[in-house]
């Protein structure tokens, strides 16, 4: 379980995350949704100790992320942000192997390489494992980074907008894959998503943020409703049931 206790973060005088308290249950997929600037990505960065918080604390299975040594935490929780440095000329295989760094410290064992092979297989990247990242399409590169994070084999996997750069086919495939990771490998997946319908179809739990605070939380059928959508996004959104999934129609 991830426990967020009264966490705040501000830049100068702008409060980005404002006294958030939240428990993210272990197992399953939790999606964080909300308008731009609601503090979703910042919250994810605070949970994963990429940013220092101004006050409050975050516990991951009881480990305080601020005080736990970085390499111990790297075996517990992994984070992939949206702006990955794509200038580096690494091969896909090398990148995924770096996912084992917290265990191998740069000297991958046979065991580590087995994990690498599995992660490449999982994301269907075997055929391009020798290619350089800067020679891949945006979607392939995104999959390579996700493979690296999975290879890190942590109980908690945090992904900031993993569907960026992906077309419909690959976005749906990515969500199915994350669903499988949660179901088959028993991982806790926490996502920041922009498309509420992906959140609706694939998550167990949805957290809606607005103005740095948690506005709503609940399972998809509790959150994907016209009145709550209005509360989050300040616009009228119709919601329809399609094959038992709640789909928000926000295009018109």
């Amino acid at each position, binding site marked *: 379980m991830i426990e967020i206790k009264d966490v705040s973060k501000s830049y100068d005088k702008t409060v980005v995350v404002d006294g958030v308290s939240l428990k993210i249950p272990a197992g399953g997929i939790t999606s964080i949704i909300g308008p731009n600037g609601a503090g979703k990505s910042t919250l994810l*960065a605070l949970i*994963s*100790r*990429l940013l220092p918080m101004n006050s409050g604390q975050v516990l991951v299975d009881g480990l305080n992320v601020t005080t736990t*040594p*970085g*390499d*111990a*935490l*790297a*075996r517990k929780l*992994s*984070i*992939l*942000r949206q702006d*990955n*440095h794509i*200038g*580096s*000329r*690494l*091969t896909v295989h*090398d990148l995924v192997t*770096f*996912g084992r*760094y*917290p265990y191998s*410290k*740069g000297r991958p064992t046979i065991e580590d390489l087995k994990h690498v092979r599995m992660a490449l297989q999982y994301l269907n990247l075997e055929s391009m494992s020798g290619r*350089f990242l800067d020679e891949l399409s945006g979607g392939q590169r995104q999959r390579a980074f996700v493979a690296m*994070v999975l290879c*890190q084999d942590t109980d908690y996997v945090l992904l900031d907008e993993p569907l960026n750069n992906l077309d419909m086919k690959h976005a749906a495939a990515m969500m199915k894959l994350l669903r499988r990771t949660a179901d088959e490998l028993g991982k806790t997946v926490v996502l920041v998503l922009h498309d509420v319908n992906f959140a609706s179809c694939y998550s167990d739990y949805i957290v809606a943020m607005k103005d740095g605070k948690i506005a709503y939380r609940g399972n998809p059928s509790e959150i994907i409703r016209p009145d709550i959508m209005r509360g989050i996004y300040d616009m009228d959104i119709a919601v329809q049931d399609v094959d038992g999934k709640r789909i928000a129609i926000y295009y018109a």
Partner: protein
Amino acid sequence: MLDTNQKQLVIAVLAVSGLAILSIFIGVSDVTPQTLFSNSEDGRALQVLLISRIPRTLAILLAGASMAVAGMIMQILARNHFVEPSTAGTVESAGLGLLVVTVLAPETTVIGKMLVASIFALLGTFLFLRVLRMIPLRSVLVVPLVGIMLGGVIGAITTFFAYRLDLLQSLNAWLTGSFAGILSGRYELLWISLGLMIIAYIAADRFTVAGMGQDFTTNLGLNYNRVMTLGLIIVSMVTAVVVVTVGMIPFLGLIVPNVVRQMQGDNIRRTTPWVMVIGAGFVLFCDIIGRVIRYPYEILSG
């Protein structure tokens, strides 16, 4: 079994070794395998070999390899492929340090001078990275421009004091890269750079990870600032050692890592041996050309 990459590396090492042997037998005084083994001239050839030729060749190899490695690390630290110690104020700062120690404490040993130059180089590079952080828009070309400007400012300060103190000529002599003055006893400091290169190789994976950015590094449980500091120290000390012993070899640290990067990518563990070999080979080649083209005179490598 060696893979293709390793085979190519072995070939490159052999080629550089060939150049090194060639370098040993080029020079004004007559050193050939024959004169070496015919004891006719009271072993004079052997003396030249031991006191001048071998030290010179070793100095070239060490300086070339370590400056190329320093350039590579610098490019990781600044996350920009157009910087190297001579475009980031590092070399100029080392020069300033050298001037300061020469003026204030002329009796200091070479090691002491090197240390002072290292500290100045460290401060200069640190300043460069701080200035970079303050620039909101970090376009690819602005970064080296900032470095060159900073280097220019530091260089100007150095020149001003050197001018006032009548040390301009010495300053020029220090900073222009030349292996002509290398004799046994005047290059051994360069072995420090070998140690630094070994450290860089051991920490290679950390540098690769750091090259992917701060968030990426933190996610893998590494302390980004610590990796940066290590890199900064290696770059500064290599630069100081090379500036103190042979002077400045500009643009080597820019060209070599980028050539290797195109071929081998950014995995530092894989590229470091290449950067070292090509860096050494490149400087050696330039030095041989410089010695042959106006034989028996020389054109300085820098």
